[in-house]
């Protein structure tokens, strides 16, 4: 029972990190049709910026998270305005370009922060632990769950209950018709790309409480985020949340129940979802 409860919490906390990362990826893919493979390195960049501000310079963890999110948001905006908006409907070119960004940003991080991984860090008041079924459980993991679910609620509200959200949904359903109604979809798309990149950097700092900052994260975490988008479906906040939670839980329980097949389980889950519902569990219709 103790192991089950701890695994449940661990899966939920890791799932929330994956949600923060994959929600931006999913929304950008859904609205703009842009597959941004540099999303993982924006996460990594956010983690390094957060480490510098919170762990190295000693400023507030939350200031670090917001600053890192803003910095990666601006970086994402530059990528979108400067390059990606010219490649709408050209998936091959998008993949090649964003893979290029992966190498460039990874090397910039290597140049600035060096090759040694930065260990996990958190806010001072989150350093302790409380007891759950006889196990000390860190406050930082609970904070990740709270932040993840709060952001999920905020994004859901934004997408489902506001005019901007309605425009975003309309743009996803029929881009040309939305533009024909006089809506500046370019502006909305740019703003959405900023939000997606902001969330990636923000997730980097929130996730750094668990996994620190490491040059390998750019691709490692992107792989998981892509699985989440495939499972949850693109363009759906709820889908990203469900997909992320499923991956987090399968990862946590898989390592205990089927340690030799833990990674395989993630892909197996993805294959099953693709076979049953190719658009993802809660994805918008293609």
């Amino acid at each position: 029972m103790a192991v089950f409860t701890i695994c449940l919490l661990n899966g939920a906390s890791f799932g929330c990190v994956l949600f923060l990362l994959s929600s931006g990826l999913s929304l950008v893919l859904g609205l703009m049709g842009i597959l941004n493979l540099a999303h993982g390195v924006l996460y990594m960049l956010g983690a390094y910026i957060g480490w510098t501000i919170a762990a190295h310079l000693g400023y507030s963890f939350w200031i670090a998270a917001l600053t890192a999110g803003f910095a990666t948001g601006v970086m994402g905006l530059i990528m979108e305005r400067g390059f990606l908006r010219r490649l709408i409907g050209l998936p091959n070119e998008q993949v090649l370009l964003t893979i290029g960004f992966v190498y460039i940003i990874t090397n910039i991080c290597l140049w600035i922060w060096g090759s040694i991984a930065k260990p996990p860090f958190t806010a001072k008041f989150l350093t302790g632990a409380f007891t759950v079924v006889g196990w000390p459980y860190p406050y930082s993991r609970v904070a990740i769950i709270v932040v993840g679910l709060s952001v999920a609620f905020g994004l859901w509200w934004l997408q489902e209950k506001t005019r901007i959200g309605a425009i975003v949904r309309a743009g996803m359903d029929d881009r040309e018709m939305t533009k024909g109604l006089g809506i500046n979809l370019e502006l909305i798309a740019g703003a959405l790309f900023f939000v997606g990149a902001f969330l990636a950097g923000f997730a980097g700092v929130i996730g750094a409480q668990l996994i620190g900052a490491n040059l390998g994260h750019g691709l490692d975490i992107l792989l998981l985020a892509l699985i989440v988008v495939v499972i949850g479906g693109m363009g759906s906040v709820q889908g990203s949340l469900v997909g992320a939670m499923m991956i987090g839980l399968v990862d946590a329980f898989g390592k205990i129940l089927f340690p030799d097949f833990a990674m395989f389980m993630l892909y197996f889950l993805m294959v099953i979802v693709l076979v049953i519902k190719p658009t993802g569990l809660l994805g918008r219709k293609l």
Partner: protein
Amino acid sequence: MKKMKSLEQSRVLCVLVLAVLFIGSVWTAPAFGAEKPIKIGVVLARTGPFASIVGHVLDGLKISFEQAGSKVAGKTFEVIYEDEGPGDPAFVMDKVRKLVESDKVDIVVGPFNSDLRVPTLAYTSKKKIPSFAVVCDDEASLKFPYAYAFNQTTYQEARPVGWYAFDKLNVRTVNTIGGDWRAGHAFIDGFVQGFTNERKGKVVSQHFAPIGTTDFSSYIVAMKPADAIVLMSVPGDVAAFLSQAHQMGALKNTKVINIGQSVLPPMLKDLGPKLIGNIWQHAEYQPFYKSPTNKKFGELFQAKYGHPAGSLEGSGYGVGLVVLEALRITKGDTNPDKIHEAVKSIKMDTPLGKLTFMPGNADKSGVEGILSRFIEEIKQGKDGYYWDLVHEYPEVKPLRK
């Protein structure tokens, strides 16, 4: 008559051409021979998950070559560096082939990753190119002719850590968690050999996590109550594991024994406060080991890089010394059989301690070093946290059935 004259002229011309060719070859061959440098190909990771470790190894290796001033036994040597890449065997094979077939190297050093090194040895041994491991090698490497593991193998190197845990730390039960790749398994197997077969310790649970594992919490929860956790992975994963285990209170009343030298000195600023008094790791090289050779290396390293050498830098320096010493013994002859005999006869003092070699089989299969193994512990000094030497096992012989 005219025909005969023409024939005679042709003969004279042929003789002249042959004479020119002969004289030319006599004059130029020694000159070219004297200029032809010995070529050493180094294939080590500059990208991929091992790049952070290998950068330190390269720093030490470069010093050994620079110290020799590009001359060995009166002959010039040239070093050609290649990247072993992100872990793709095809990628590294292309690099090794390029070194052997295009650059015509006489000796190969590396690759670092044992998953990649073993396949390259199948090729280099067939081509009779001596290949030296930079750090501890894989057991499988020793089956190949012309493969040299001066720093022993991962399996052999971890055995003394098992002895130390049992004899000095009074550890009787352990959980182990290793990186799920060739060296990860071999290190853990070596520890288990030393701890359970050569002593009377007990392993209560064993786990292997893929490289790049982000969340270790499930492994931590699955561990059973024990005196120590034995850990082996790449630096990023080790940092994540230790921090997560610390957050979850799993390091309370539990010692940590790290194999693989992956808690690098720059990581101690962040990890030191959490782990001081609670973690030990083995080292191939230890900066506080007292010997004139080590003192000299320490000074050279400090002067060049502005910080003290660590274990990986010492290993890199060590392999450079071994390669050059073998060439000194052969007087610069790069014949692989002569290099093989030379390596077996090496007896030298290195910064890693006194080094001799245990000969392999008669078929020129791999040769392994006999040298000191060190155990180190985190201490806090006025300049921060550092790894201090706490025990030396001198002249450790590999266990061979």
